[in-house]
């Protein structure tokens, strides 16, 4: 399982950080840390299946609907 974030849609609300703190974080400027390593679309490495519930929660609570799971 991988997680993708559309960084053009994302506007750094940080709701995903509350839902899945093991996957998402904000940097000191209040931006999603994935912005430090990617542009356009961020694609994660292979993630542990245990994280699925919290990532699904992050998908639900993202105001911009910018997160997806890739199986």
């Amino acid at each position, binding site marked *: 399982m991988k997680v993708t974030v559309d960084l053009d849609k994302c506007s750094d609300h940080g709701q995903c950080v509350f839902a899945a703190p093991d996957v998402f974080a904000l940097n000191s400027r209040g931006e999603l840390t994935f912005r430090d390593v990617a542009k356009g679309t961020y694609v994660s490495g292979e993630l542990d299946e245990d994280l699925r519930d919290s990532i699904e929660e992050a*998908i*639900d609570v993202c105001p911009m609907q910018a997160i*997806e799971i890739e199986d």
Partner: protein
Amino acid sequence: MPNASNRDRGLTSLERSRVVVVGASLAGLRSVDSILRAGYSGEVILIGDERHPPYNRPPLSKEALSSSEGFDAIKLRSSTKPDSYKMILGVGARALQLEEKTVILEDDTLIEFDGLVVATGLRSRALAIPKPKNGIFSLRSFDDLEAIKGALIRAGMRIAIIGAGFIGAELAGTLTNLGHMVTIVAPEEVLMQRPLGNVLGGAIGRHHRERGVELCLGRLPLEIESGSDGFTLYCDDGTIIRADLVIEAIGSIPNVEWMQQNGLDLGNGVLCDETLRFGHGGANFAVGDVARFPNLAFDEVPRRIEHWGIAVDSGRYLGKAMVSLLTSGTIPTSFKPMPAFWSDQFDLRIQSFGIPGLVVDPSQIRILEGDIDTEVAMGYFQEETMVGVVLIGLGQSHMKYRDEVEKSLKSR
């Protein structure tokens, strides 16, 4: 059919049961998601009066208005497989017969249920003043957005927005950025007065003014006339405003009329208990904007909370509550969400946690950090308890202040 005499049956016995979710909204979709995620094995039907599948409404006043992207850009994502439930679109519910456990649709279809979820949300309120029948818009649905976009036929149009709430203020920002000349007219003295208070509302208003929005506050249109040169708004203080386009953004009304005749308290939404349950003993719940419920994290007063986040949280809560009630007759936990909302206006990101609107005494609203005219954190206090925080900017501090509101509420 599950009932009080049948409380010991497990999830598998629900196979022949049915949950009906009325309202193909954000709260409705998240309810479907959570019911199925909780292991419900019966049939789930989602009913919506709009012809569109569930979509995200906050972008309507912002990104979706300024971009040329179509419906797909705002269609809601869901972890639920589309074939695991049934969706009926373009037909609303006409009546509820709670005792008989049936919903009657506008086309007279009768649907029986074992569990009911009401997610019918709100509709725009219209000003009850003399005004032309056509050409005055409101914004609640995707079709409303398409109508407004269709009316924006050239640059530099004069647009009058009636209402100083979040939707009016967001629309003003987006339409100004698109090159139109926007006037906000409303009876309040500042923008977003009721939810944010005078100090913050005033500061946000200055921000709007600096970017070219005209604020005609403290007055109310009494009549709108349409003529060859567009619309004329006559206000109660003698002000006359001319516009090519008028948008009403004066709040909304809960969609509950279809539930009448059941002895329910439907004054300002569906009155629920602290588990979002209503009615006389059945598995009936309301979620999202339409639910009026006590949030025991704050007090016992039932309130409707018109936040995107509450629609999500109540829908997510619903699944376990519904399945637990249908299988064991009990609901394990009450619904105690941390209300949170955001609003983007020009380059301002406004973010709120808790219920700042509970505090009306200006001496109980204090600056925690920053400067009111740039980036600021405002704390809203009931005695020693911080019941809300509103941030302008300060994106890196969201987590900290959300935690502080949570801690403060827990320790009182």
